[in-house]
């Protein structure tokens, strides 16, 4: 099964279960959770179901396209079900079956893994799903987002697409994966991995990045003052990504790190408060 087929099947599966199929967010994010379709929709009382692929950038994980298991940018399939249905684990397992994974023939386990994002002021409890020892999914019942207690509670299912594709096709390296018939992941993305790794570790101008961080932070505040919650959130995301770049550049001390995470979180918390107050 090619990577694109796999994505197609998951889209189909969740479309049949009443999910809005959304598109990736058009900004640099570290995880599908940062897409407003998750961060903002998890807040407030409205039921919602959504699924989308989110390319996720983690500058620190870049390996110049040389490590067969690590990437600067990987792809997540993110599913949000709000409220969480009572058979959500079974439905999730059904989605694996739809990828032709014979569950009776494998070792599958839900192992405790509580997700927390200090920059988003968010946490939840859940598991990592291990398939023959490979972590293929994060499964989380959100409890708080942007420092706000949630009700109703939603469940987040995050598939690691490269991992699952590797499992299904049995390849040893991400770059050998078939993206489409006859075209490998490596052909399409390896050069990109190299350039972004090189940029994050060697080229990025940390002084400039610090300045950008400040500018984005200020602009976030301005947008908020004008009641533009969603644009403000965009700048919060930009802060977060800029911070990740600064960190991968090694240009930051531990104390500074804590301080900057705190600044991003403060933005996220205010945004979440404003968003929720729209419902009051």
């Amino acid at each position, binding site marked *: 099964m090619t990577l694109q087929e796999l994505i197609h099947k998951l889209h189909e599966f969740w479309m049949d279960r009443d999910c809005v199929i959304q598109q990736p967010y058009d900004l640099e994010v570290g995880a599908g959770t940062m897409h407003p379709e998750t961060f903002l929709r998890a807040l407030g009382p409205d039921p919602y179901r959504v699924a989308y692929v989110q390319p996720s950038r983690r500058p620190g994980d870049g390996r110049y396209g040389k490590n067969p298991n690590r990437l600067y940018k990987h792809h997540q399939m993110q599913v949000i079900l709000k409220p969480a249905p009572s058979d959500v684990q079974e439905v999730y397992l059904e989605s694996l079956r739809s990828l032709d994974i014979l569950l009776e023939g494998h070792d599958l386990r*839900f192992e405790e893994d509580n997700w927390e994002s200090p920059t988003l002021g968010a946490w939840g409890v859940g598991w990592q799903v291990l398939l023959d020892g490979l972590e293929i999914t994060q499964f989380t019942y959100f409890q708080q987002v942007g420092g706000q207690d949630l009700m109703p509670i939603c469940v987040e299912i995050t598939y690691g697409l490269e991992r699952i594709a590797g499992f299904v096709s049995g390849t040893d390296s991400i770059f050998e994966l078939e993206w489409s018939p006859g075209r490998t992941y490596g052909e399409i993305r390896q050069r990109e991995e190299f350039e972004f790794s090189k940029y994050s570790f060697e080229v990025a101008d940390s002084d400039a990045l610090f300045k950008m961080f400040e500018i984005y932070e200020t602009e976030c505040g301005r947008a908020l003052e004008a009641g533009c919650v969603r644009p403000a959130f965009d700048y919060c995301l930009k802060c977060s990504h800029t911070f990740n770049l600064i960190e991968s550049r090694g240009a930051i001390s*531990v104390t500074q790190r804590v301080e900057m995470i705190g600044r991003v979180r403060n933005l996220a918390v205010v945004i979440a408060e404003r968003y929720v107050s729209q419902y009051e």
Partner: protein
Amino acid sequence: MSEFLLEIGSEEIPALMIQPALSQLKEGLLELFEDNGVGIDALILNQYSSPRRMTVAVSGLPEAQPERQEIILGPPKAVAMDDVGKPTRATFGFAKKNNVHPDDLEIFNTTKGSYVGCRVKHAERPFSEVLQEGLDAVIAGISWPKSMYWRRSRFRFIRPIRWLVAIWDGEILEYELEGIKAGRETRGHRFLGQSVLPIECLQEYKSVLRDHFVLVDEEERREKIRREIEAETPAGLEVIEDEALLGMTCYLNEFPTVLQGRFNEKFLDLPGEILVTVMRHHQKYFATQDSSGKIQNFFLTVLNTDDRFLDDIRCGHERVLKARLEDAAFFWENDRKQKLEGRVAELARVTFQKKLGSYSEKTERIRAICNQISGEATLDQAARLCKADLTTETVFEISELQGVMGGLCARSEGYPAEVWKAIYEHYFPITVDNVVPSTLNGAILSIADRIDTIAGCFSIGIRPTSSSDPFALRRQAQGIIKILLEKKLDLSIETLIEMGFKQFEIRADTTVDEVKDFLIRRIRYMLANDRGIDYDVINAVLGIKIITVSDLVRRAEALQNIRQENDFSSLAEADKRIRNILEGRDLDQSTSVDPSLFETQAEKELWDYFSILAPEIEGLLDQSEYEKSLSLMARLSGRLDQFFVDAMVLIDNDNLRNNRLAILVKLARMFRRVADISRVVRFKD
């Protein structure tokens, strides 16, 4: 007699939480039974579990709860009656609420005072009603380290509850919790068993689930894993024992099956410590070694399925481990490109604690403490390098390897064993049950690191509380005590604390005392729990100045051994009298005893015998032979008792009185060389 089965079906419960929660569930039920008049000794109670369920099965319950009377207490008497003894409004309210006439109220005298109350009669009822009423509180009463809510009710549990089985004498108990009606349907293994599985009665519970690939008996799972590990270990090799890992795998799987896998031999170039930690920490695999202790390229993993498709599954696990080992090999190669020496400078950027500075500052403090304990140049070198591995990627990825990683790097850089082993071992003992450093340098380095953390945290106001101990100060202190004791270090805790605080500018004497109290509490704990010493003996040995921890333990053990002997008990009693007499008197310790002033035979005999025994006792004490010296001292008890009968100490004659006091001073001084034996309580036979 009746029987009851309760199964709480949940989404996967974290492995380490199942056992404690199940105990709470059992205790909660027992309490409910007891509160409702059931003698719990006659009950037969079994508990079962798997990652998805917690089950208690009880037989021997009564079918009915007999008619009974309950006393309900109302307002205190002072509130219930006015000055002239008339019932107040509070009393009328209470009577109305409980549906009794105010004239039927009574006064009940309790340990907390007198209350107005009433007796309420309850008719006989089926015992199952007790359960229907009480189960909510029992289940909600289970406490979890981190719980969640998933419904509007905000009911908290570890993960969402998905089904309930409640069977009373073969019938479904009508009961509902969080929108789930109890029934008789349990669930088998997710993929191998039936998803809806009816249970008729508690006797068949275990076997029905076994047929559907869920082993609900924890012992059975454990035994299966043990047996299969043995069978799957390649001939000539052995598995590295790991009880904690075994316990965890036992609660991670409903139907555990052990699988053998292997990895490429090229990874055996990695240090064994890294291999084992990657397998254990990341993948929960058991590692194997040959008879010489060298790690081998076989591993064992516990699966949550049966053995029909092992080849496919093995392939998957081996591929994951290969990726992990490739990462580890990459880090290990990369990390060694930079020498430890070069990493020391980078520690200035790694914060230990905001107010206590960076690891570079911590390193300097540790060095200063080490230098005061020992002038060894190799120790100083180890101290300088001991935190350098915190900047390696290996430790960043696998924090369990801190210290060990530094030691391995130092070894490969050619440092002598006195240096690399000390670095390697300086976090030992990691938990109280673990081994202490094998080398003297390692022991001193470990103590220095720990006392620095403790003194530092106390001086900025971080103290361990019952709910939070972020720097694991209790464990740090226990480590110090364990090392001092097992390595028999000639270092008093006062001196050590002094050394620790010397490195900080901020310091208050009260803080020094607090740290001393803190360490002494850990010593008490160690004596009582690890050595079985009685509390009064602990008080006795702590009643005098502590020299070293190992010496203190020798004293305590000597005293513990001799305390039952009659002579010693009398001696301890007599010492109590001596202490009372001498207390508050400012006596010259060196006043000598003048035998010419003796008036009674008892004085003379006590003093003569003391003079004979004293040199021998002192000699024994100089060699720390506490038990022998105590048994010699105990021989004085008969004469000492006689002395108190015949010779009055506090008489008007100054010369006689001072002479008799001088005898007691000499005795007390000798006793106190072992302990304040007056604190040893007489054993009641």
